[in-house]
Structures are given as C-alpha cells and as structure tokens.
C-alpha cells in the first residue's frame, strides 16, 4: 500500500498531476451545473413576471 502511494519516488509529481486534474474537472462540471440551474430559475422568474405583469 505504502509502495503504491510512493509511486516509485515520484509521488509528489504523480499525485499532484492527478489531484490538479481532478479538482479542475470536478470544479468546472459543478460550476457549469450551478450556473445552469441558476439560469433556468431566472428564465422561469422572467416568464412568471411577464405573465403576472400583463
């Protein structure tokens, strides 16, 4: 197990590369999801406003 995490002495480089990639991929996916949700709510609100106003 310790051998696995040591990565033949390259632990710092290998895990940093995978860690950075994971953070970036998950981060962009989550922020895209969040922005999409927010925009859908805004569209709904605008539609309701238009209906209520006229």
């Amino acid at each position, binding site marked *: 197990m310790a051998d*696995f995490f040591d*990565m*033949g*002495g*390259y632990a710092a*480089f*290998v895990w*940093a*590369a*995978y860690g*950075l*990639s994971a953070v*970036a*991929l998950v981060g*962009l*996916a989550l922020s*895209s*999801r969040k*922005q*999409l949700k927010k*925009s*859908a709510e*805004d*569209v709904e609100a*605008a539609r309701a406003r*238009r209906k209520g*106003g*006229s």
Partner: protein
Amino acid sequence: MHRFANPAQFNRLADAILPWAIGAMVLLFAAGLYTAFFASPPDYQQGESVRVMYIHAPAAWMAMFIYMVMAVASFTALVWRHPLALLAGRATAPLGAMFTALALLTGMLWGKPMWGTYWVWDGRLTSVLILFFLYLGYMALWQSVEDEEKAGRAASILALVGVVNIPIIKFSVDWWSTLHQPASVIRLDGPTIDGSMLLPLLLMAAAYQAYFIVVFLWRMKLEINRRKLAVARQAMMHAPVGAE
C-alpha cells in the same frame, strides 16, 4: 442539421443524450483510472512517473480537439449566422482553456523529474501556451465588447485566425526537435507504444471525451437560457411606458 437550429429542439436532444453520456463518463473514468494505476506496468525508463502520461496526453488531445470544435462553430456562426453556433463557441471555450491548462501543468509535473526542468521554451510547449492564450483571448473578447453581436463576431474571427496554431502544435515536435518527444500514438504507421500502456491512454482519452460531451451540453443549455434572458430584458427595456 437545421432541425437543431431550434433551441427547444436542441434542449430536448441534449436531455436525451445526457443520461447516457454521464453513464459512459463514469464507466470510462473507472476503467481508465483502474488501468492507469493497477493494470499497467511502470515504464523501463520513466518508472512510475509514466502514469502522468495517461492524463497528460489525453488533456493535450482535448485541448486541440475542442479548439477545432470552437473554430468550426465560429465559422458556422460567421458564414451562416446560425444562432446556436455562436452559443456553441461560447460553451466550448472554458472547457478548452481548462484542458489546455491541464496539459501544460501535468506536462510540467512530468517534465521536472524526467527532463530536470518544469519548463523550456521548446516548440511544443510554446505553441500550446499560445493555444491557452487564444482561449483566454476568445473569452476576453466576449466579455469586453458590450454589443453581443459585435463581441461574437470579434471572438469568432479570433478563433478562426488561431486555427493556424493547431498544425504548428501537431508538427512542432518534428520541425524543432528539442525536448518534447515526437508522437507515439497518433502517427501514420500506427502507435509505437506497448498495448499495456496504450489501453489506459485510450480509456482516459475516451473518459475525457465523454466528460466534454456532458459539460458541453450543460453549458449549451446554460447559454440558451442566458440568451433567452437577454432577449427578455431587451423586450422589457423597449416596451412602451405604462405597458406593464
């Protein structure tokens, strides 16, 4: 293709594809990471650091692939004024910028132990850095010009001009043979790497491709909503006084 010009139809298509794309993405990441760490040997020269390659090369392929998607979308937007094409360009740019940044960063993390340096101004590294700036420039143009139509035109033109950089990236390793090694997978005479290492590479590449489809579709839907809101806001502003 014009059937998908309608945003409502595009949304329906996206919703049909998304669950499958998400399922494929999860499976491909699981298989890719398993083969990358457990079912592949250390390299005889690179040792365990070779495992960085399984996320480095796919990120670099995505960086170039997404740029071509962005360029085709920009071309379509400029020539046929297809409204969804412009949104597609906008939806791809953050994905492309991220994969380019990851290609550069993972490359640096591999370069330090293998080459002895994080960075050299070699043809490949420099042209990929330029690719990163092209993505940033594209996004900055959208931000900096107020009129959406003008912003879209300027950004699309930049995206098209930047296409010259793509063959430069691809052939940089043959034209200037400095530090970055030449291609070992995408070559005319077939891959030159062993199957045990080719498999994790291809699985991770497929996982990244599935990830791109998922996040791209989310961002397309987001862009369509954003556009709807902009149109609604404009209608509100131009409504005659007392119309409310």
